[in-house]
């Protein structure tokens, strides 16, 4: 009998996805979506490290399941995220979303466990194809358009990946997914492919475009996998690549300003996600054991608190029909539990002591300082204040407090509250007992987060930032929440590129019309000239007289005689 180690973990998710449409009872479907992540997480935990489930494919030895300290931590958090996301989506009767969620989570887990680049490619594309259905499930024309843009970019990332893998194999003769150097076109293409999914600056806007377009539950599930899979891929393939430090620093910096003025709170969280990815990318770029621990720890806690924030805003959208800050406010009156969970998520992402962000982010910051990346460290500390501004304050304050919007929605349904409650408890538990997370990180952790200097420093940063908010809000200098669209790089392919193509098309049409009309005119003149000579009234159509024919015959005969005589 085949053991668990012979069946790739992703296949359990795929088998469940095949079974779900045939299960007529909604609760049984829901139970299956909850049981699979628990089963896979338990087995991965039990398995021990090693390479399992190898198969031959077109002459390549594919490693479908490589469990080591790095892949295990990402697999475990993906399983946890799948469980929490599916619990949050317990009410769903839409089997399309349930199937998509299972396929998506399974693909992400398969990719995290892939031991070679070809296996990675298949799962990489799997995440793209499965996840787009969580956007299309919204069922509107806007969501369809967004989904098409999302799919194009995600599939494009996979195409670049396989091109890079082909070149890499040509150069090295290896398809093993291991640390690479940016020294050839092949590795640069693989790097670019990872960068697209990790939402590098200027390649980032698919994230803010698509995540707010998904369904209430779809956004929660989307937030966990694609980008963190890219972080895992970078950590596996490009740890210690210095350029990542600077890319990551830019990622932590620029989304802050966009998030601050964005009205759609799910888009604010998408910008915030981009900012948080920056910290992880910096950790990968530094590449030391401590920095990689920081990246893994931050990815782990980030999946939890970002899911929690998306869940709370999703619950508000679910009950009120909007996630626009300009339409919300004062919801603590009737949604106090959701408000509490949102505050816990906000405290966690802001890295307040005793919350999960505090014990994870500091690993990366400490290592940046230790390795003398002083300016990068300053950017990261600045970005920490920025996180407080948009995710720590803006999300809970303008949703549940601030002015009274007059809305009195009912509290979120029980299963949503349960999912949010478990996630919130985990955010606090990890913050209070960091050793639980540190014990599953890729390398041994020699770090104490709760020192006087760290706690006081962090409290100074956050409390004084809060004070600045209080003063600016009081004097009316805080940006008001207003309905608007803020331009970002998607403008390039949604407005500029189509208008350039349209302008070019019009130019070509004018030239074509001119050219064709000129040729047509000449053709017409030629036909008229031919008609004049060969038409019924033309010279060539006249009937010749017999006398003139005899005359021409005599001329020709004379010419023949002359030629004959001369020759």
């Amino acid at each position, binding site marked *: 009998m085949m053991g668990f180690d012979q069946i790739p973990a992703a296949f359990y998710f795929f088998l469940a996805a095949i079974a779900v449409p045939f299960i007529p009872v909604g609760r049984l479907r829901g139970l299956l979506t909850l049981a699979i992540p628990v089963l896979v997480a338990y087995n991965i935990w039990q398995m021990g490290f090693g390479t399992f489930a190898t198969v031959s494919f077109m002459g390549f030895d594919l490693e479908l399941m490589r469990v080591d300290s790095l892949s295990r931590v990402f697999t475990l958090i993906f399983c946890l995220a799948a469980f929490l996301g599916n619990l949050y989506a317990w009410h769903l009767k839409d089997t399309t979303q349930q199937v998509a969620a299972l396929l998506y989570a399974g693909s992400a887990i398969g990719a995290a466990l892939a031991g070679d680049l070809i296996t990675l490619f298949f799962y990489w594309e799997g995440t793209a194809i499965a996840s787009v259905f969580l956007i299309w499930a*919204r*069922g*509107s024309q*806007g969501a369809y*358009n*967004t989904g098409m843009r999302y799919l194009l970019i995600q599939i494009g990332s996979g195409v670049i990946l396989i091109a890079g893998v082909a070149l890499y194999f040509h150069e090295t003769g290896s398809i093993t997914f291991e640390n690479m150097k940016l020294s050839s076109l092949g590795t640069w293409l693989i790097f670019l492919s990872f960068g697209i999914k990790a939402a590098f600056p200027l390649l980032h806007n698919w994230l803010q475009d698509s995540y*707010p377009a998904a369904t*209430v539950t779809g956004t929660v599930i989307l937030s966990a996998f694609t980008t963190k899979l890219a972080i895992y891929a970078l950590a596996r393939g490009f740890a210690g690549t210095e350029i990542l430090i600077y890319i990551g620093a830019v990622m932590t910096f620029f989304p802050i*300003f966009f998030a*601050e*003025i964005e009205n759609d709170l799910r888009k604010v969280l998408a910008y915030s996600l981009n900012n948080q990815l920056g910290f992880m990318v910096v950790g990968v770029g530094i590449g030391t054991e401590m920095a990689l621990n920081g990246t893994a720890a931050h990815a782990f806690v980030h999946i939890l608190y970002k899911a929690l924030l998306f869940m709370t805003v999703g619950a508000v959208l*679910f*009950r*009120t*029909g*909007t996630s626009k800050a300009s339409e919300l406010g*004062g919801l*603590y*009156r*009737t949604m*106090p*539990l959701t*408000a509490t969970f949102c505050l816990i998520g906000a405290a966690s992402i802001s890295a307040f002591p005793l919350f999960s962000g505090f014990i994870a982010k500091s690993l990366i910051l400490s290592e940046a300082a*230790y390795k003398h990346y*002083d300016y990068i*460290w300053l950017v990261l*500390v*600045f970005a920490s*204040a*920025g996180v407080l*501004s948009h995710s720590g304050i803006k999300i809970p304050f303008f949703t549940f*407090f601030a002015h*009274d919007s007059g809305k009195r*929605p*009912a509290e979120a349904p029980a299963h949503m509250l349960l999912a949010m409650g478990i996630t919130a408890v985990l955010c606090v538990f990890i913050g209070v007992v960091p050793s639980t997370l540190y014990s599953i990180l890729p390398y041994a952790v020699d770090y104490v987060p709760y020192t006087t*200097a760290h706690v*006081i*420093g962090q*409290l*100074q940063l*956050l*409390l*004084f930032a*809060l*004070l*600045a*908010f*209080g*003063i*600016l809000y009081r004097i009316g*200098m*805080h*940006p008001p929440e207003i*309905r*608007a*669209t*803020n*331009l*970002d790089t998607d403008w390039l392919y949604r*407005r500029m590129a189509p208008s350039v193509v349209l302008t070019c098309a019009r130019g070509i049409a004018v030239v074509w019309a001119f050219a064709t009309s000129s040729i047509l005119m000449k053709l017409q003149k030629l036909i008229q000239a031919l008609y004049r000579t060969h038409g019924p009234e033309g010279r060539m159509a006249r009937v010749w007289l017999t006398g003139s024919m005899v005359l021409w015959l005599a001329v020709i005969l004379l010419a023949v005689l002359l030629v004959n005589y001369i020759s």
Partner: protein
Amino acid sequence: MAHHSDPKMNSLARFYHLTSRKRAMTVMLGGLTLSCAFVFGYDGFYLKHEKVEIANIFGFYAYYGFAGFTFIIFAALFLRKIIKRREDFYGDQDVNAEEPPEHMLERKDL
């Protein structure tokens, strides 16, 4: 009146409702100022060994947090002037301009 409790509110909501009282903002700002003063002053009671030299300045994180947050707000206000467009800028078949479909919601008011 804003500070009157709604009978539909539970005890947790009533606790949050304290923030809507007239003097709540002043009290919260006062409490926050005191907390800030405490953590700022605490810098004098331990020895700093920050690896980045500038962080060893007394109250560094306090200055940096306050100035950083203020900069973010003013920079964001400036950015809004450049990139803000009307909500239906990308047309009415854009997610930002459309109402969320009812099939994915479960509106319920108390």
